[in-house]
């Protein structure tokens, strides 16, 4: 979503993005001409008249599980967004019985929060796991 019109979205997709992504952009390119939706999500820069790089992960219940906002010159890390979605999906599937510690990615062990885990996280999780 940006402040560009849907006509500009069409041209950007047809002229440039379709050269990067075969078949063009598969999802909806939204237009927020007046920045009203961006203001609602607190990512609209009223001085520059553009949206900043806000990214929101919304679960099937419509609940915001996470967000990240960057200033324009730095791009996002798509893999990190995917990792977060996978983590939120795992937690949801476990109905909250499992949690994903720092550095978790699919295949790595989760934690099962509860009285038995208090003071014993060190047995299950090592500092090195945050970095590998």
């Amino acid at each position, binding site marked *: 979503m940006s402040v560009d019109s*849907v006509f500009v979205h069409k041209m950007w997709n047809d002229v440039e993005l379709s050269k990067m992504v075969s078949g063009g952009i598969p999802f909806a*390119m939204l*237009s927020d001409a*007046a920045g*009203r939706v*961006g203001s609602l999500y607190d*990512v609209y820069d009223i001085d520059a008249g553009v949206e900043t*790089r806000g990214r929101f992960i919304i679960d099937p219940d419509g609940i915001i599980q996470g967000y990240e906002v960057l200033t324009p010159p730095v791009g996002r890390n798509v893999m990190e967004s995917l990792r977060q979605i996978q983590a939120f999906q795992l937690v949801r599937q476990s109905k909250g019985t499992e949690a994903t510690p720092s550095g978790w990615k699919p295949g790595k062990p989760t934690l099962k929060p509860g009285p038995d885990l208090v003071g014993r996280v060190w047995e299950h999780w090592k500092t090195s796991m945050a970095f590998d």
Partner: protein
Amino acid sequence: MPEEMKVGCARPMGGPVGEQQAEEQPEAGGETGQETRREERTMVKVGRKAPDFVAPAYHKGKFVTVKLSEYFGKWIVLCFYPGDFTFV
């Protein structure tokens, strides 16, 4: 799902729908207005409902109107960016 829209010269605009739109309506007294705005800004929090909105969109060759809540039931990634044809 998204409904196709007629193309004209007018620039269609998106905006909030539902509760927060009602909150936006100015009430008597300037104070209230400011408080309303603060309320609107604090709407976006983790663990809270994503504020609903409608927005015009370009999707696979068609101009459509998208409503966020129509996608509830799936995982949604909502991305904002500064502008088309920018470099990053």
